């Protein structure tokens, strides 16, 4: 057991890879064996990550707030190491990845008949890449995982996708690669600066972070810009979102689930893990904050408005992702505990709700081979189980209290409100619009008489299909009813980030004030003071 405990991250990371290697030896004609093996491996991937849930609370932090860390030398001459570790933020995202990874593969049981072996091996490779991104504490290792993940996703869209799959796959690959090469320049800038200052070359994130106060402000802004483009394309933030609807519409169901559920979180995770702690002065710069916040608000409202007008269910959900991710980035750049922890919770929520929504669209697409909203109507009469599950998922996406979406959105709005009430006011409009397009979608597809003869004989969900959705729904209720464990896990890392990036925060907004029922006056008057403090800290940064 100690070996398992000490190397748990490596084991989680490489379980899918080991499964993939075995899969390559299964002959391609044996579709059943391939399917079973694919599901077993991904389920095993989830099982080995499960002990984290029980251990994470008691586990002492080994390096700063990071637990379960592992370090091995890798490319010594450039200072790159195999260095893994997780804190509360990455812990939640790792769990999201293993759960969604398994459910996505489970949902492909009947959907993918062609070239099944390659399909499942691509999913396993994708899983390795995603887990690696969330676990890496070495910038070089992170970058390798970040890029390597594009390859399986490209193939999943490009080989098993819809009619315009090639266009979508290439667009996806080019957009994200363009962002990440700029990010690489940012990484190298920090790397060489650190080497120059200390005479020691390393990609170790913790070392670089400990040095973040010494980066000059001008350099921070440049690096921030390079990172921000890379992450913003991944999120995707307005105006870098145009690859997303194409990729989603063309991707197979499981691909969309992973894309929306996990891949998009890498952008927001990048902001939280790298931009904020590594470039604190640039991240807290009033102009930067203003740009990022308004881009988020535009994304929230624009994404919602565009969703409303979609005729394709998948496209509608894709645009709703733009809107929901806007909340996540808004929360991040509120730069306070509520905003940040709400953002992480909302990332998990989006993974759950949107992942489930894509599964739901996939289920109907598998039956009818169309996703046009006008092709459907009155499905609740023929598919009651489907309609029920759809309703719960839809309500969770809208943010109904007792379900997960509410918790995340509320906390983010609270965080935004503490800084500027206008931000929250605009963002609320997005929630209203969100309710509108989701309810309208539900009404048009589920209610009314079932007139289309093709729909009248549709089969309701079987057990396997329900099992792809039920774990997500249980999780949605858990966050909605009792979110405390999630916030507990996030408390320490979020606090540390806020202390780094927004050091003046604690002085004027104590916990009591934040829980005050009428906080309107307090943040409004506090905001200018904070700006002064930020400017001062920025000046201090320059003086370094």
């Amino acid at each position, binding site marked *: 057991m100690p070996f398992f405990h000490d190397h748990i991250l490596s084991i989680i990371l490489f379980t899918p890879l080991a499964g993939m290697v075995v899969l390559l030896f299964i002959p391609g004609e044996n579709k059943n064996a391939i399917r079973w093996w694919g599901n077993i491996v991904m389920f095993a991937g989830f099982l080995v990550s499960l002990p984290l849930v029980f251990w994470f609370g008691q586990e002492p932090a080994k390096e700063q707030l990071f637990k379960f860390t592992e370090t091995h030398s*890798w*490319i*010594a*001459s*450039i200072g790159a190491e195999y260095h893994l570790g997780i804190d509360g933020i990455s812990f939640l995202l790792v769990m999201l990845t293993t759960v969604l990874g398994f459910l996505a593969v489970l949902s492909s049981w009947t959907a993918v008949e062609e*070239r099944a072996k390659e399909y499942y091996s691509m999913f396993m490779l994708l899983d390795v890449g995603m887990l690696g991104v969330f676990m890496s504490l070495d910038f070089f290792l992170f*970058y*390798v*995982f970040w*890029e*390597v993940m*594009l*390859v399986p996703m*490209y*193939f999943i869209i*490009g*080989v098993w996708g819809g009619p315009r799959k*090639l266009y979508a*796959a*290439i667009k996806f*690959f*080019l957009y994200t*690669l*363009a962002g990440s*090469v*700029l990010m*690489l*320049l940012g990484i*190298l*800038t920090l*790397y*060489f600066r650190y080497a120059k200052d200390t005479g020691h070359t390393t990609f170790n994130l913790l070392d670089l972070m400990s040095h973040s106060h010494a980066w000059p402000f001008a350099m921070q802004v440049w690096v921030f810009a390079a990172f921000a483009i890379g992450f913003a394309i991944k999120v995707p933030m307005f105006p870098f979102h145009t690859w997303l609807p194409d990729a989603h519409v063309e991707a197979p169901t499981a691909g969309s689930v992973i894309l929306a559920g996990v891949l998009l979180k890498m952008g927001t995770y990048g902001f939280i893990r790298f931009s904020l702690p590594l470039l604190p002065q640039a991240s807290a710069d009033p102009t930067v904050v203003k740009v990022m916040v308004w881009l988020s608000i535009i994304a929230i409202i624009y994404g919602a408005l565009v969703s409303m007008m979609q005729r394709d269910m998948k496209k509608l959900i894709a645009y709703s992702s733009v809107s929901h991710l806007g909340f996540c980035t808004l929360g991040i750049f509120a730069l306070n505990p509520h905003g940040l922890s709400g953002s992480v919770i909302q990332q998990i929520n989006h993974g759950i709700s949107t992942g489930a929504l894509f599964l739901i669209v996939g289920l109907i697409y598998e039956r009818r081979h169309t996703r046009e909203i006008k092709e459907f109507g009155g499905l609740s009469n023929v598919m009651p189980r489907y309609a029920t599950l759809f309703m719960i998922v839809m309500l969770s996406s809208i943010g109904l209290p007792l379900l997960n979406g509410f918790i995340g959105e509320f906390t983010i709005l609270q965080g935004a409100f503490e800084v500027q009430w206008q931000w929250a006011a605009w963002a609320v409009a997005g929630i209203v619009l969100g309710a509108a397009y989701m309810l309208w979608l539900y009404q048009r597809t589920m209610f009314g008489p079932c007139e289309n003869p093709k729909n009248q004989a549709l089969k309701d969900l079987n057990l396997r299909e329900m099992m792809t959705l039920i774990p997500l729904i249980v999780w949605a209720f858990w966050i909605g009813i009792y979110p405390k464990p999630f916030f507990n896990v996030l408390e320490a890392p979020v606090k540390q980030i806020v202390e780094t990036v927004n050091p003046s925060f604690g002085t004027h907004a104590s916990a009591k004030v934040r829980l005050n029922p009428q906080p309107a006056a307090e943040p409004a008057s506090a905001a200018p003071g904070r700006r002064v403090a930020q400017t001062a800290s920025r000046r201090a940064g320059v003086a370094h």
Partner: protein
Amino acid sequence: MTVRNLTALAPLIIVSATALAVMMAAALRRNHAAAALMTLGGIAAAFASLRAAAVLRPLAIGSSEAGQLLVIDGYGLFFMGLILLGSAAVVVLAHGYLERQAEHREEFYILLLVAVLGSMTLAASSHFVSFFLGLEILSVALYAMNAYLRARAISLEAGIKYLVLAAASATFLLFGMALLYAEFGTMSFDYLAGQMTAGIYPNRAMVTGGIALMVTGFGFKLALAPFHLWTPDIYEGAPAPVTAFVATVSKGAMFALLLRYFYSTGAYRLHSVFVVLAIIAAASMLAGNLGALLQNNLKRILAYSSIAHMGYVLVAFLAAGDLGPEAVTFYLIAYFITTLAAFGVVTALSPADRDAGRLGDFEGLIWKRPALGGVLTLALFSLAGIPATAGFFAKFYVVAAGADSGIWRLIILLVLTSVVGLFYYLRVLVAVFSRPLESRELAPQVPFASAFVLAGLSALLVWVGVFPGTILRAVKAAVGSLRY
């Protein structure tokens, strides 16, 4: 000539002797397999003798009046090793390829060995005379190799084009050398270095003019923009194994010389030279990556991509500093492996009457011939610089070298054009992964030896990509012996 000298020159002598031996053997009795095996044996022996030569290094060869002609140092030996390994792969691939051709086959290996000799001479030369000698040995062999398949018009065209342009560029090179000689009265890199670093050049115009003319010569050989126009035609026309050789060994040898020449003489420190080379690098990255977008033939796409890649290497070269030469050398190693793998697939797929190349030839390759499709996919990802392949770390190292030296404009252009580059690699991949529409007739069976080489190259591609540490240490040691 002492024993020391002979040992130091053993790699060159063995390669020359093998060329003669193959020629004799072919005159006595034609046997394709025997010729290929003798060639491989000679290359292996030359490779083994590198070790003995390494003990003596560094050793300068040549009379003192003329200055040293060759220098056998760690750096030169390292590149000789690389050239020999690359050539060995070409020999194996060529054997499978020529088996399907109606031509006489044995002479090919003689030409190849002569070209290898020329390349090795370039890697070791430290004097204009040996430089020109090596270059001409290499070029003359290449003229014939390009036109080797006499029955194919396109191959003859490639040979003629290469002949005319290479001869023209050689005259530029000679004239440049003459100008420098007129100014400094020496043709040895060492003496040039002494005088150039001391800043003793009364006539600046002669020096910069001389260097500019030499750059033209280099530019042609390396297919750098704007001297790149021959590349696509020759890549397309030449037999696939020859293309592989031109793309890797010939360019690698040239870069080995370029590095030694510019670093040892310090010529790259001249501002005007730096600016010109920077413009050439930028032009190559743009011309290569944009030109490839319009192509529909894999050989032509790889030709344009090689222009871009040479531009990347030039960026690393310009970065200089501690990392520059290492980045150049590492990049060349990765490029050797990747390009040989890509052309290896083209070679293996080529039927008797033409070379595979049109994108249609590769349609559905991954489903029809999974192993070959997989190798090509890996090679394309490596060319595009995707992690877990050699090409990624090589490109990373180039960018790192550039960032270290602060040549940001070139680095930003590099990363942006490599995104463009990804697009045309993906176009090829789209074909490789598409549904096979029609089954074009392609070469049936991949011979065991070629399959073995391709498997080895793919394994290297991934190994160097994931664990570059070993190669990096070797590169550091080799480059460390380069005095500058």
